[in-house]
């Protein structure tokens, strides 16, 4: 059929007051930009902080707690007992608990001829599941003279800060694995030197970690002591910022490393802000669609007699509704496409200026943003069509 909206366009007058229409378009554009940008930002923050949070893995936070040392309990045994651990495990917010077991014998470390330094050292071991970077070489069996070590990356950083002042070479993460360290383990029941290799650096655990098997063997071998003294434990929880968990730990007199949860706090604050922005975007979209509906009502009321005559002449109400609604399609597409472009530009700016540099974020918008765009366009058109149909029904 030759029939297009152009044939009836002169009969559907919007009146001279098109101001509300343009305000509506502008509002819709702002709303769509806000929604898409906040959606993309939300995803960016989610991905960036996920990639950069070693404590977080598989949706869990790993945080260390210790007992608060006060003047009253100073000098007493402040390690966690088995009962303490079991009580913690029963907490609904805590998925798992692992003690950090330390050495009871004396350990001295020397770095051989390359780096002429020697220091007293402490060693700790923890359940492998709690270590963020665990290479397959991190294991030890009695008789093995080489002990693998996982070192806190903070320690490497501290070393690199003071090394130049002490005429020691600075070390990169890669070269540290080639440094030969000799561990001198001394106790009342023996003395032995071990060669050790730094097999990984951990961002999660601030310690010098050795395999649990080595710790058990050496504590027995040098001290003949198998009791477990854990002054520090790690807990695995869904959300380290859960107020219920924090208040429980406070009640128990446990000290939580606040620094460690700061990152999560920033993330949740950022996500709340971005979510609020998204909700605001939705609100603006709803408001502008309402403005549109007023404009549409006005338009249809003004063209009432013409529309009624068109229906009398045999024009189908369905065709009229679809044709009238379709006239907004180009402007809606324009609004959505320009909003997408703005979102893409803001996303690229975010990548360039974001406080966390991360090469893993793609340059293109996330597929959820594309999906949201399509859903938004479909929804807007559908609402529009329904509005026109409803208004036409009224005049029929």
């Amino acid at each position, binding site marked *: 059929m*030759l029939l297009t909206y152009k044939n009836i366009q002169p009969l559907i007058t919007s009146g001279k007051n098109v101001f509300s229409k343009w305000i509506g378009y502008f509002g819709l554009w702002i709303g769509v930009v806000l929604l898409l940008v906040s959606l993309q930002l939300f995803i960016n923050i989610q991905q960036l902080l996920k990639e950069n949070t070693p404590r977080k893995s598989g949706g869990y936070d790993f945080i260390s707690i210790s007992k608060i040392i006060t003047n009253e309990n100073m000098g007493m045994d402040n390690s966690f007992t088995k009962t303490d651990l079991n009580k913690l495990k029963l907490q609904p917010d805590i998925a798992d608990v692992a003690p950090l077991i330390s050495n009871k014998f004396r350990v001295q470390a020397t770095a051989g001829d390359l780096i002429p330094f020697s220091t007293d050292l402490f060693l700790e071991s923890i359940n492998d599941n709690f270590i963020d970077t665990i290479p397959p070489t991190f294991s030890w069996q009695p008789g093995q003279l080489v002990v693998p070590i996982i070192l806190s990356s903070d320690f490497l950083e501290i070393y690199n800060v003071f090394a130049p002042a002490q005429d020691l070479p600075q070390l990169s993460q890669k070269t540290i694995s080639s440094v030969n360290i000799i561990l001198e383990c001394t106790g009342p029941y023996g003395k032995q030197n071990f060669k050790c290799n730094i097999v990984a650096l951990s961002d999660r655990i601030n310690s010098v970690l050795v395999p649990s098997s080595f710790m058990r063997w050496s504590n027995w071998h040098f001290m003949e002591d198998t009791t477990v003294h854990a002054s520090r434990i790690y807990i695995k929880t869904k959300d380290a910022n859960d107020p219920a968990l924090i208040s429980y730990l406070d009640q128990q007199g446990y000290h939580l490393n606040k620094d460690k949860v700061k990152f999560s706090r920033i993330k949740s604050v950022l996500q709340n802000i971005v979510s609020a922005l998204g909700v605001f975007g939705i609100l603006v979209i709803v408001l502008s669609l309402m403005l549109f509906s007023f404009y549409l009502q006005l338009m249809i009321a003004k063209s009432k007699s013409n529309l009624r*005559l068109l*229906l009398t*002449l*045999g024009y*189908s109400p*369905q065709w009229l509704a679809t044709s009238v609604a379709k006239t907004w399609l180009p402007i809606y597409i324009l609004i959505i496409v320009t909003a997408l472009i703005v979102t893409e530009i803001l996303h690229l700016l975010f990548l360039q200026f974001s406080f966390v540099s991360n090469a893993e974020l793609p340059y293109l918008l996330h597929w959820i943003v594309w999906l949201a765009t399509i859903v938004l366009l479909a929804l807007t058109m559908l609402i529009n069509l329904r509005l026109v149909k409803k208004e036409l029904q009224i005049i029929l």
Partner: protein
Amino acid sequence: MEIHLRKIKPEYFTLSGKEVSQVWQHDISIIKGEHLQIVAPSGSGKTSLIHFIYGLRKDYSGTILYDNVNIKKFSTEDFSAFRQNKISVIFQDLRLFENQTARENIEIKRVLNPYHQPGAIDRMARKLGIENKLNQQVKICSYGEQQRIAIIRALMQPFEFLLLDEPYSHLDEENKNKAMELIDEECDQRNAAMVFADLKPLNFFTGEKIVYL
């Protein structure tokens, strides 16, 4: 297609036994190719009857059937389909878009379901003597000219029934005959029925059915 009127009567009418109507509360069938004249003085319900048949009003008792289907059961979409293909009308009050030109008024009907090429508009306008009015806004045309525009508009589509409600009230004898010829010609082409409501019988046709309201 056939149209049947089954004992219809406007709801607002109270018929006394003395009145004689051959339409109200009677059964009338209109079939393709037939000419039916409905003759009645002003105020006896001619326009109402045309509106009932065309489906614009439902305030009547009895039933009107298109091909044995009660039109009161039709949806607006059903009526649209009938008004595009089967039934056309010339209203007494013309119902034109006043701010549009004569051509635009006719074209808006033509494009809906084209039976004629655009050239037919000029040909018919020439025949009815309004070819120089085609590009003029309807609101500045005389009533007689507007009547002729409405006639041409009604002839732009395919139809099996043409309803005419006092279509020549403002035409002189010569123009009336020209219009009648054109309508007759177009109805013949389509083998369409003509339902003609007027104040008195027309002497243009012979052999048509005349009923008095």
